[in-house]
């Protein structure tokens, strides 16, 4: 604990609850990670079938990964029934992690390439790119983001294929509260939208709210109960119950169990898998 001094009015700490110095606010969470705590607990990567991931590190920065998946995948259908076709694929990936540059590439057996690049152009400016490339024409997507981080604000400009432009901005207003807004314009579908978001976080809880003119209203509340959590479960208003367990068997060996039961659609999905490697 800091000993109270005569300078407390200009250099406060969160524990002492002194007068807030509005010129020294912390940098806010990036706009797209606003709902991060809620998504981590409520949207685990459930899957159906068998999954096996193996990651081999060649040195501190470079790793190769091999992943095998066998199971049914859903295809969208007009009727109320879900249609599942059994698929199997092998995915090869290469990751390069540097403090300034991160490259992440995955290639599947059907020729799709999933690429992510994150590059720190300077202390405050970051370039991120995300692309899914396929051999079929007109089915590839790419999105490039430029992020600028200021002292207590962040701004981002996005470019996507199909004439997609977006920008967002978030600012810390008090040490716990940050407010932000975004606009986007999609040339292909001639759509544009505006959205606003607010995030209030303390040591014990996080509450976020987001509205957008595309018709999204999202509110979330996360309360921290304990330090460790391995089993995640959720139940939602569609009558769908999900559980996800990630158990660490040994150093570098993770066992994953996932289950999703949708009572309304009578659709049951169970998956198990093994992850090897760091």
């Amino acid at each position: 604990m800091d000993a109270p001094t005569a300078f407390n009015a200009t250099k406060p700490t969160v524990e002492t609850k002194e007068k807030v110095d509005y010129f020294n606010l912390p940098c806010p969470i990036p706009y797209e990670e606003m709902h991060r705590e809620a998504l981590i607990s409520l949207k685990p990567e459930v899957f159906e079938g068998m999954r096996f991931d193996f990651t081999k590190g060649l040195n501190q920065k470079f790793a190769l990964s091999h992943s095998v998946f066998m199971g049914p995948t859903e295809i969208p259908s007009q009727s109320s029934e879900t249609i599942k076709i059994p698929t199997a694929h092998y995915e090869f990936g290469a990751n390069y992690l540097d403090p300034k540059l991160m490259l992440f590439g995955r290639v599947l057996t059907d020729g799709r390439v999933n690429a992510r690049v994150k590059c720190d152009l300077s202390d405050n400016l970051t370039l991120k790119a995300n692309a899914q490339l396929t051999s079929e024409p007109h089915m590839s997507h790419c999105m490039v983001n430029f992020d600028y981080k200021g002292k207590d604000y962040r701004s981002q400009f996005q470019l996507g294929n199909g004439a997609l432009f977006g920008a967002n901005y978030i600012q810390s207003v008090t040490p716990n509260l940050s407010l932000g807004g975004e606009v986007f314009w999609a040339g292909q579908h001639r759509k544009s939208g505006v959205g606003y978001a607010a995030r209030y976080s303390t040591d014990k809880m996080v509450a976020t709210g987001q509205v957008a003119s595309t018709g999204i209203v999202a509110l979330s509340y996360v309360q921290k109960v304990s330090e460790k959590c391995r089993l995640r479960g959720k139940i939602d208003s569609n009558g769908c119950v999900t559980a996800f367990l990630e158990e660490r068997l040994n150093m570098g060996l993770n066992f994953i169990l996932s289950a999703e039961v949708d009572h309304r659609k009578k659709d049951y999905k169970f998956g198990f898998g093994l992850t090897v490697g760091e």
Partner: protein
Amino acid sequence: MASKGVSLKVKGKGSASKNKGSSSSSSSSDENSMCKALKDWSNWGLKKAKVIAHYGFIPLVIIIGMNSEPKPSLSQLLSPV
């Protein structure tokens, strides 16, 4: 001609409206052909960039990784252990 110019990669930016309104004077038809040529060139460039990224991204990551310190050996790259 119009079908050649349109693809997912083209960032329209209102160039279609440019073509519609300017068919009368000769200076604007010069601009017209320059816009068309620019669009065709950028389309060609984007297509080539997409093919290069599709085939070359993973090899690029591997090359950058193999040249980083400490240098891993080729046998480590190919063996499954």
